[in-house]
């Protein structure tokens, strides 16, 4: 019972963290171009910044 008192809030906290992170990725439009994201990982050089 004591273990539960610790573990349940812990599980909740971690799960909530993941949910918040997911909502952040959704809000920053990371799912808008799934096809492009698949190839973008192959672009090895950063474009020179000006």
């Amino acid at each position, binding site marked *: 019972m004591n273990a539960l008192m610790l573990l349940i809030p812990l599980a*909740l906290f971690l799960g909530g963290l993941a*949910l918040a992170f997911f909502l952040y990725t959704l809000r920053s439009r990371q799912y808008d*171009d799934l096809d492009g994201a698949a*190839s973008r990982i*192959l672009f090895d050089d950063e474009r020179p910044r000006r």
Partner: protein
Amino acid sequence: MRGLGLDAVYARMTAAAGTLRPQGPPAFAAAPLARDLGNGAHELELMVSGLTCGACVWLLEQALGNEPDVTRARANLSSRRLTLRWRGPAGRADEFVRLIARLGFRPAPWSPACLRAEEDAEQRELVRALGIAGFGAMNVMLVSVAVWAGSDMGEATRALMHWLAMLFALPTVLVAGMPFYKGAWRGLRAGRPTMDLAVSLGVLLTTAMSVSETLRNADYTWFDGATALLALLLVGRVLDRAARRRARQAAAGLLALQEGTVTRLEADGAARPVPPEAVAAGERILVAAGETVRLDGVLEGEEEAVLDLAATTGESLPRHCPPGEAVPAGGVNLGQPFTLRVTAAAKDGSLAATARLLERAEGARGRTVALADRAAGLYVPVVHAVSLATFLGWWLLGGVTWQAALVPAVAALIITCPCGLAIAVPAVQVVAAGALFRRGVLLASPDALERLAQADHAVLDKTGTLTEGRPELLPGGAAAADDLALAASLAAASRHPLARALRRACPDAPAATGVREHPGLGLERDGVRLGSARFLGLGPDAADGAASGAADPALTLWLARPGHAPVAFRFADRLPADTAAVVARLGALGLESELLSGDGAPAVRAVAEASGIRDWRAAAGPEDKAARIAALVALGRRPLMVGDGVNDAAALALAHVSVAPDGATDLAQTAADIVLRGGRLAALPGAIALARRARRLARQNLGFSLVYNLVAVPVAVAGLATPPIAAAVMASSSLIVILNALRAGHADAEAMP
């Protein structure tokens, strides 16, 4: 362009997208579209057609990013949207658009239709709901599994677990179920029960029953079932939505290519770009070289104009229009710029008339009811009737309390959850559409896949579909290699189809400077002449003597230089080598092919014989084509129409399923359900086989769901189902259905013999 390290990319791009086509000048003025961001910065959004692979994205972003003052160049591969930001005047937009065109893409203004297709608020809401439902379901399941496993659990601990599950489940059901509740409410107000209503009822009833069970401190609650059901159904919704969104984007992209501006000559002599809709009859517009004529008009001035009317009439050779002649919209100016007095505003013009014809045809084609909707229509009432009967049976006949009677009734409802229906078909469609996309087959309407699978008759247009629709130099003429090189260097100055064919035949010849073009006749430089026999002053006899055999004079070019006998180059509209094989494979799939062309009988017969088509009709106008399709439909056939011209558009819209190559006219592409990238028919038989396999798998999945329910429902009705059993049934059936759907992408072995 060199110096960006792009050579390797070109190799990859050419491999991925076929050939790089140099495109004409942009057909629209981009500068007015640039948005002022303040501080002298501007932003431009474009739809970039031809953006088909990761390497294209890289190339585009690199090339634009290396332009001075560009602060942001970001391309979206899914929607083909390009966002460009730069510091400097708005006028640079045109420069960027030209650069994009030079790289081989087709830029177009980012139209509101594109925006609507991409800015899919509903999709984002669904994904958010899925995330929340997934989170809720996982946590509820965690607690529930503890209850199921802990047989020695104390009563107080179990109660705590149930309350915890309720704590998670109530907000999850409330928030993540919103898309379904909204849909159900919309359906109710419209007076028809929908799938959403069934889902909402199931989820809300299960939750309510579980709350009551928690308060009663019963052995089991069903919160896990309700949340897992929501999560699984949302997966199906998201998949379905993604497939539709892709189709909508393809359609919106095609529409955007049609838009553009025309150059209006104002009373004060200035030339201003305006949208075609803004031009009234009687005003004058300037048509630049290479520009598409967007409005009907009468040619003004002294010079004759050379127009490529392949898109509107199907003629493969340019037409020479003398001053004063009516020029239809849709032609491409191959010669000098000319002035046109507009005779009809855009909405009354010939293009609009064709578009209206198209709309009528679209309306006439009965929408096929999608397989999943048909199944849902049968399925939902039965499930609800069974559930209600279970409740009444236990309560009235079984003699238990109404709360206890609710448990088996809701168990029946949740065990027969329409997961099979909700996931089975969309998953198959997403996998199949993805596999087709990778082969260059673009589905432009959501139900194209189902209709493609049903096709049993193929109607093919000749020009641009079976043949390449452009003349190619015939080998083995009388011309020597240096004649060809000289002719090709002269031909670089002209956009005439025969001149371009010469360039293709000898691409390395340096482009000659100082070439004078005599429209309709030929080219001249320092006494060297390239053109028709008439231009070179050759009589018909001399022409016959030089050209071995009777060549079509319209498909022959002559080269004359001082001190040499004239040399002839002969051209023909060639049939790709694999055409006969494609027709044979269509036949093997049970599709009888027929040829329907606007060309004359001899040309059509020759193509039909070469490609192995027995049934052909020549000299068919747009009405004849549409009538032939309508006749086939009346006979109960399901014709597949392949065509690329404006004259095919009505027939395309009437056909059960229609296909256009991507080099087709915009109108034909808009009318088509399916667009073939690379313009090759070779992908078509494979696409049909894949569509059929997808249909078979979707049916298997539906059948599988049915069998599952036949076993599970009696168990639930008998009151034997517990939440662990329901969870196992739900998860395993969904998994099996999804795994089965994944096989839709692996049709290569049988589709590509």
